């Protein structure tokens, strides 16, 4: 019997939110799968950010194996660079399946840009800024252009205009639906995956509308979830109908949790105040404006802290023998950070304790995890340690969700962390 896999990703959707919306009857389609499948919360790799999470999902490995620690990387010369999809150091399960002749169709998966040779069809997700480099095979491009396919919302506008946000969320969900329609029968596939990223955008920009039932946009927030649920229902229906004779595996998942945001925490400002970091420019714009000779440590989004170590960075100031001392000072500083009597730190983790893979040396020296409500930021321009930028939601490393259902009943492994899922999928396929 042939085997088919359908994966639907919901970027940034917390288990707890799905549970409560489900209880309110907002998610009838999802509910029907939850009733027959395995549904639960899971953790994601640190730091909890889409590029790391989706890379970890598709490789089944943590960042110290695949090499992606964030949307940005820092070079030995303190310059930001953006990891390419081709920079992943281990194969994805799409590649492993491809070696066995099984093709995949993947739509809107973050961190797959620019596309490279791919066993099947791939439309990259965030941060895919040029559609022409986000589509494999490129022969597909004219048809996507004809439908005015977009990878993302108009973020600049959606951020400041909530009416527009909700309109554009629906418009991009509709484009995702059209892309699925277009590709459903394009090639004979074993695996079909589509990711809804609007959920993450909604949460970043309007989590407050969820938390306050009196908020004028509360209903629009819930309605978007109804639309996402209908979208899921359509895909599940046609999967079941078109492949009724096959063994089918359905996986739904998110790549991190989400929670309300009270204060952004500008770690670099704290490091400046405490003498760990100095900038060479009066109005620094990016971390590359730091003054290496006056810097012992600096931070990148989200909560990644690097020691300016000799040997690692071109103008490193910290001797390897002093690293431990600097880490202790930083840990003390972050652990004891408070805002109005509230403790900020949920944990300050050392590289050695988080990452064991061959690329662990490329990891940040510390990862700063905060209590809910405090969002750690790598921004450099803020004059204060605590502030706000207009965003109302933040990621969490726990409370991501998975939902697994196999028509043959052959899935009973419970994932603890997002990297467990690729093994579960491949095992099911091989069984």
């Amino acid at each position, binding site marked *: 019997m042939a085997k088919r896999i359908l994966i639907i990703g919901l970027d940034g959707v917390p288990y707890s939110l799905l549970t409560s919306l489900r209880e309110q009857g907002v998610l009838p389609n999802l509910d029907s799968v939850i009733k027959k499948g395995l549904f639960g919360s899971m953790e994601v790799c640190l730091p909890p950010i889409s590029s790391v999470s989706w890379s970890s999902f598709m490789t089944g490995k943590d960042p110290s194996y695949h090499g992606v620690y964030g*949307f940005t990387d820092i070079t030995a010369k303190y310059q930001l660079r953006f990891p390419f999809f081709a920079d992943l150091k281990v194969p994805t399960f799409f590649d492993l399946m491809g070696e066995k002749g099984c093709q995949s169709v993947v739509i809107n998966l973050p961190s797959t840009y620019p596309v490279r040779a791919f066993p099947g069809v791939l439309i990259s997700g965030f941060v895919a800024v040029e559609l022409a480099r986000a589509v494999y095979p490129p022969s597909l491009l004219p048809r996507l252009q004809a439908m005015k396919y977009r990878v993302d919302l108009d973020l600049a506008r959606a951020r400041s205009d909530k009416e527009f946000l909700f309109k554009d969320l629906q418009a991009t969900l509709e484009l995702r639906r059209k892309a699925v329609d277009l590709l459903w029968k394009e090639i004979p596939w074993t695996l079909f995956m589509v990711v809804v990223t609007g959920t993450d955008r909604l949460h970043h920009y309007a989590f407050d509308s969820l938390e306050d039932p009196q908020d004028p946009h509360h209903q629009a927030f819930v309605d978007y979830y109804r639309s996402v649920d209908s979208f899921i229902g359509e895909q599940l229906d046609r999967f079941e109908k078109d492949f009724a004779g096959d063994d089918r595996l359905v996986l739904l998942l998110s790549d991190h949790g989400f929670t309300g945001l009270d204060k952004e925490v500008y770690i670099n400002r704290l490091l400046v105040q405490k003498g760990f970091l100095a900038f060479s420019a009066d109005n620094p714009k990016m971390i590359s404006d730091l003054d290496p000779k006056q810097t012992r440590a600096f931070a990148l989004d*989200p909560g990644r802290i690097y020691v300016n170590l000799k040997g690692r960075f071109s103008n490193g100031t910290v001797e390897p023998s002093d690293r431990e001392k600097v880490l202790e000072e930083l840990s003390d500083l972050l652990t004891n950070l408070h805002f109005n009597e509230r403790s900020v730190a949920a944990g300050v983790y050392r590289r050695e304790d988080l990452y064991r893979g061959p690329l662990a040396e490329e990891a940040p020296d510390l990862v700063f995890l905060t209590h809910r409500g405090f969002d750690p930021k790598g921004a450099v321009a803020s004059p204060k340690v605590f502030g706000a930028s207009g965003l109302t939601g933040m990621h969490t490393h726990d409370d991501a969700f998975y939902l697994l259902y196999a028509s043959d009943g052959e899935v009973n492994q419970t994932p603890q962390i997002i990297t467990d899922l690729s093994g579960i999928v491949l095992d099911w396929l091989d069984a």
Partner: protein
Amino acid sequence: MEDSERQRLWSLPLEEKLAQAEEVIVEAFDRFGREIAATWTGGKDSTTLIWLIRRVCRRLDRPFPISLFIDEGDIFPEIQALIEKVSQKWEIPVEVVRNDNVLRLVKDIGDPVKVAELNDLNRRELDLLEFAEPEFPFEPESYVGNHLMKTVPVKLFIEQKGLTALFTAIRWDEHDARESEDFFSPREDPSHVRVQPILHFRERDIWDVIHTYKLPFCELYAQGYRSLGARYNTRPVDDIPAWEQDFDNIPERLGRGQNKEQIMEQLRNLGYM
């Protein structure tokens, strides 16, 4: 050029494409005499063009024109090795041009370049670009970097040598914007003519020529690179050799640089950076 003519040239068999290219080279020698030089990047296209020019020169018994290699400051060692090996074997004199003024101020990609420390010439060139920041990171393929590290040295070279024409190895099928190019395309600042004899070759044709005539090529192509640029900004596209890749479905320039500014803007909108 008319679209129909371009289609006709594209559809010629390989030998006729080569003959057409040689005709362009001969005409260029007739028109520009010794006032023409050939750019050589070490990539597959320009190495093929250098080979063709050399073939014409030997047939006509004329000296090989000066060939010009631009060191933009981040050259793959494999390219360097190819140029050294082939220039010796084919006895082709190579002149290396570079923007020394900038290169003296930097060591690695990303090193800050302070505009105040640049010489008048480079500062004037930045003015032409309407670049007003006090410094920029050294990146040979950024907008500013490309101009200072490639355009400016070539410009100086043309002026100093009194050239009126330059052979270049661009092809129509590299990207749509090149379809308006002709075998002889005039340029301004400085005024000269770009002679482009292999415009009508497709990527496949280039590899066919390389394999048929056993031309040397940079080993990076065997590692999956399809198109070569500055080292920091170029990646392989696949793990099989370039000539075995699916030309119709994988764009040649896929492994080349990203649009950094646009990516940063998107990240900023989600609260990163």
